[in-house]
């Protein structure tokens, strides 16, 4: 098991404290994000997911508790905040709405420029980041506003990747994209992960995606960590997940249904590939019977 790069310790966040609108968004949250892992975060809307990830690079400050990056409190000083912003990259929901430059190139270059890199380094970063997300060279001089929705999203992600963060955090990166577009974005993110060994944190409402890609999952419920574990461990708690406004992957539901009908499958199944493999095993057993 890898050592943690980010540690969230006893994090509590209260919005509008001491007013009639006081709301505790996170309550005593403890999470470790390990080097190189893919961590899925799921939870109902309003469970505190977005509040949580905005703490990871000091965009908002804890009411109490600490965020440790390599053991150092990121809110300790101006320089620690700055360090966190370049080492932890945050991609918001619908990041394409934040594109603003005249050209795709300038938009991707915005982050690395703020890191005070040399023009050559910046150029290298832009081209590499564009490569990760499949934005072709020819598009770099175009206006980002001429691109399709899926392309814009990839440019926005490239803008964060260009800072080469060691932790890449994405809030609903696939929302509103067609299935082909979802697949591409996920492949882009995985390419960055595989090539750089960065940890990836994905907030998602898609149980299918979480199941397929995550090494580990965290379930948030009303501002608290309700479960954490491998997808296999998490999805054995179907009833609890549904009570929290979530769901289990369709294939897990199918396995439960098959079990009721007397067809038993070994272990927990949560992807189409696993289900097909398990059923092929049964089929081979029948052929020999």
């Amino acid at each position: 098991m890898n050592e943690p790069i980010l540690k969230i310790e006893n994090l509590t966040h209260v919005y509008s404290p001491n007013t009639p609108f006081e709301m505790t968004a996170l309550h005593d949250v403890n999470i470790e994000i390990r080097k190189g892992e893919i961590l899925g975060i799921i939870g109902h809307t309003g469970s505190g997911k977005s509040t949580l990830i905005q703490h990871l690079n000091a965009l908002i400050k804890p009411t109490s508790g600490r965020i440790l990056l390599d053991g150092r409190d990121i809110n300790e000083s101006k320089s620690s905040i700055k360090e966190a912003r370049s080492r932890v990259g945050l991609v918001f929901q619908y990041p394409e709405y934040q594109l603003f430059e005249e050209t795709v190139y300038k938009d991707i270059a915005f982050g690395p420029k703020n890191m005070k890199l040399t023009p050559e380094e910046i150029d290298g970063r832009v081209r590499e980041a564009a490569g990760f997300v499949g934005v072709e060279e020819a598009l770099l001089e175009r206006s980002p506003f001429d691109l399709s929705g899926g392309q814009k999203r990839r440019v926005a992600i490239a803008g964060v990747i260009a800072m080469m963060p060691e932790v890449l955090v994405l809030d609903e990166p696939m929302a509103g994209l067609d299935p082909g577009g979802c697949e591409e974005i996920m492949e882009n993110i995985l390419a960055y992960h595989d090539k750089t060994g960065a940890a990836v944190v994905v907030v998602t409402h898609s149980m299918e995606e979480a199941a397929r890609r995550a090494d580990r999952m965290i379930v948030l419920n009303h501002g608290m960590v309700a479960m954490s574990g491998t997808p296999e461990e998490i999805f054995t708690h179907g009833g609890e997940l549904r009570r929290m406004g979530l769901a289990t992957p369709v294939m897990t539901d199918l396995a439960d249904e098959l079990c009721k009908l007397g067809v038993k499958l070994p272990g927990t199944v949560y992807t189409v590939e696993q289900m097909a493999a398990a059923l092929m095993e049964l089929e081979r057993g029948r052929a020999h019977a």
Partner: protein
Amino acid sequence: MDDTAIKIENLTFFYNSDEEGRAPEDVLSNVSLNIEKGSFIAVLGHNGSGKSTLARHLNALLLPKGGAVTVFGMDTKDEELTLEIRRRVGMVFQNPDNQIVSNVVEEDVAFAPENLGIPTPEIRARVDEALKTVGMYEFRTHAPHLLSGGQKQRIAIAGVLAMRPKCVVFDEPTAMLDPQGRRDVMEIIGRMKNEMGSTVILITHHMEEAAMADTVVVMSDGKIVMDGAPREVFTHVEELESLGLTVPGTVKLMWELRKNGVDVPLGALTVNECANALAAHFQSK
């Protein structure tokens, strides 16, 4: 009696050319579709395929550049009929935050009927009924911005229902919602069709949602490329994947099994249907 709710004939549309004067490309070209009263149609297509542009023609938010759209017998190009058309066809969009106008739930729901000039007691009755339909009646005095995304979307739907439209167009209404929010919206759509006899047009990227419709229409590059019952359309697994789409997980599973020589039926649109078909196969001697 005419059973047609919306008739789309050779609809062509393009957005006006940009500042640099580049020639506009057709976003919709020669689209024809007949939507029957009381039917539930799902529209699928990759991003940029023209789905939302099509949807915006159904209540005269956009007007055809070629061809015609006739809504309950009214040509959308006739500006005198625009209000009548919008009274009959309501729209629900993706982002609930962009659809909420008031800071009290029941006032928000009353906004549209108020604009229609409906008498106050009648509005009261409509608002209560709409809030009950979406299961948000007990939240009627709450502030919408403090509700969850799914709850806000239900308020937005109630606002449309309070106009008592004959037809509602949903443009990716679940894209920003969690699984519970999605289940709630789909349940409301089911009730609108079955209990209220509404015509429903649902634009979605979720194949499981499309599987619940009577008819699935698939768009690609501004054209309708498939049109049929979900059971039929979802048998075209490879074709849909080549269009940037997919099929429900249960259909994909059956397709994988059949590819490997297991004799199971392809058309399994729900978990129950799929489980029953698999159990029948694996328990047969």
